[in-house]
């Protein structure tokens, strides 16, 4: 049981997770922002580590990633910063990023360092299931790290079952097949998809992400899943002057 499992055991509805990019807008605010988000009431967090070629991301997160790289963020530096994480933040933390920086860092070493820092899970959109299962799942399990899989409206029922079996904390439901930063649209077919997934009675909780940007889209998502993730909308807030003072207001605007 890691912190994610404890959270999902205790709380089943309206879970709110926030994504932001480490090293953005300033190099040394990673923990400050996490602390502010916890105080503001976020249930868990996704800390992105930047990559030069983030194919699953829209312009907002692309830009934050590039800025973070320009600021000098690296995985080594991030783990250095995360040494203080558990002194100041107690909610579950996931790291999110692309596979190549992890491969260069060493997947086993990455998992170890993440566990040492008190990280609970990892989201790597371009790490395929086959490679995860055959090469890396042992490193995740040894370090009590959850690997989070994505599901889209096009994912077959058979594959969702497989993902459910490989998952041990939650499943990340994409609101549509899209890159980050779009708008949640609830068309009939998307509603059917949410209902279809719900009817499968998966063993893992589901959290909806991509396109959740305000209380309206958050509430909509929470009708179909255990909670939702806000990414680009929060990264946009970080573009503003005095963003630290605006974090609690932002979180309350999503989920009063």
């Amino acid at each position, binding site marked *: 049981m890691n912190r994610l499992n404890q959270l999902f055991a205790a709380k089943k509805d309206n879970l709110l997770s926030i994504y932001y990019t480490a090293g953005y807008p300033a190099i040394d605010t990673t923990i400050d922002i996490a602390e502010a988000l916890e105080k503001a009431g976020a249930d868990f967090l996704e800390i992105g580590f930047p990559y030069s070629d983030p194919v699953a991301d829209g312009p907002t997160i692309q830009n934050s990633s590039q800025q973070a790289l320009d600021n000098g963020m690296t995985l080594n530096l991030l783990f250095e910063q995360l040494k203080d994480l558990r002194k100041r933040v107690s909610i579950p933390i996931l790291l999110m990023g692309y596979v*190549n920086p992890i491969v260069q860092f060493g997947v086993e070493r990455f998992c170890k360092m993440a566990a040492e820092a008190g990280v609970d899970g990892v989201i790597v959109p371009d790490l395929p299931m086959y490679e995860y299962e055959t090469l890396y799942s042992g490193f995740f399990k040894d370090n009590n790290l959850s690997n989070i899989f994505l599901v889209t409206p096009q994912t077959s029922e058979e594959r969702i079952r497989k993902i459910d079996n490989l998952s041990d904390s939650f499943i990340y439901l994409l609101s549509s*097949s899209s890159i980050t930063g779009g708008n949640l649209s609830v068309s009939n077919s998307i509603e059917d998809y949410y209902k279809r997934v719900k009817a499968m009675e998966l063993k893992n909780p589901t959290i909806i992400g991509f396109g959740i940007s305000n209380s309206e889209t958050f509430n909509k998502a929470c009708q179909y899943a255990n909670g939702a993730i806000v990414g680009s909308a929060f990264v946009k807030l970080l573009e503003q002057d005095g963003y630290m003072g605006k974090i609690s207001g932002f979180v309350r605007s999503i989920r009063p």
Partner: protein
Amino acid sequence: MKYGVNEQGYYGDFGGAYIPEMLYPNVEELRQQYLKIINDADFKAEFDQLLKDYVGRPSPLYHAKRYSEKYGANIFLKREDLNHTGSHKINNAIGQILLAKRLGKKRIIAETGAGQHGVATATVCALMGIECIVYMGEVDMARQAPNVARMKMLGAKVVPAKSGSKTLKDATNEALRDWIGNPVDTHYIIGSVVGPYPYPDMVARFQSIISAETKQQLKEHTGKELPEYVMACVGGGSNAMGMFYHFLDDESVKLVAVEAAGKGVDSGHSAATTFLGKEGVLHGSRTILMQTDDGQVVEPYSVSAGLDYPGIGPQHAHLYKINRAQYVSVTDDEALQAGLLCCQLEGIIPAIESAHALAQLEKMKFKADDNVVVCLSGRGDKDLDTYIKYFNY
């Protein structure tokens, strides 16, 4: 095939399909269908017919007499520059558009560097009456302006890629993002032997016509099917893989792949992937790519837009690692000089990409009776501006 792909999409340590879940259904559909479709008799007949009547294949294998004299061996040029649209890229574009039609796709996207693949894709989309969107780095749009105009004339929409280095890798990122957002009706025609499995294998098969013809033509010229050397330039590696394909299992044939050294491999302005790269993941496959110690992709440089790419296809990474092919590199200056030499010795203006392969001839030590085939992957019309500026014509 000894050097072919395995069931999981790997060539030794390289390959696979490192894609986000959003692309899984598309790529899985292709994986399940591609061999069935391209081995189908109807498909083959239509593909062969178009290659013959529309592309103008077989492309000649030309015995270059003055080159042969100069380099002291029998030098042959495989004239992909004479194909319709001016390069080898059309072979793959024809194959993939026929495949897309059979998959019922209504919309085509592509990335392009030099614009040759973009032009080839725009061409086959016009031919089939299918909507076409081409992503091209903003920097490349400026240096390959005639090809941008050509694509527009052919009815394609050209979308500038404005992220990163604004070249081929960024155009590829944008095309992948488009595909993520259009998962059902769109086929992505990748222009080289890169990307997630099955693309590297599929594109290699469509380009393998180059070596299939060469074997037969060489036999007509020399009485022997097998040359001593086969040479080609490598961006992502599709003309090289097409040129190598049917010689891979003939271990006596030495394969030479020429990368773009840009201003020199140690200059910080280079695209010599095997010299500067390390193993990692780029655009959906495990391969060799230029990257920092932190795993960030390094922006490559070459005067030639078609070779300005930080990776190579996974099969090339494998052939490199096991030493089946030799990977060398040639600078901007060497390539441009070789391009001019080709004009003056053989009356052929080569694409600057292809001129990299020609430049390597200078550095080889041949025996007098060696047969050497160089893939002349494209013509130089698109590069006239660059040549003119460099040589002050």
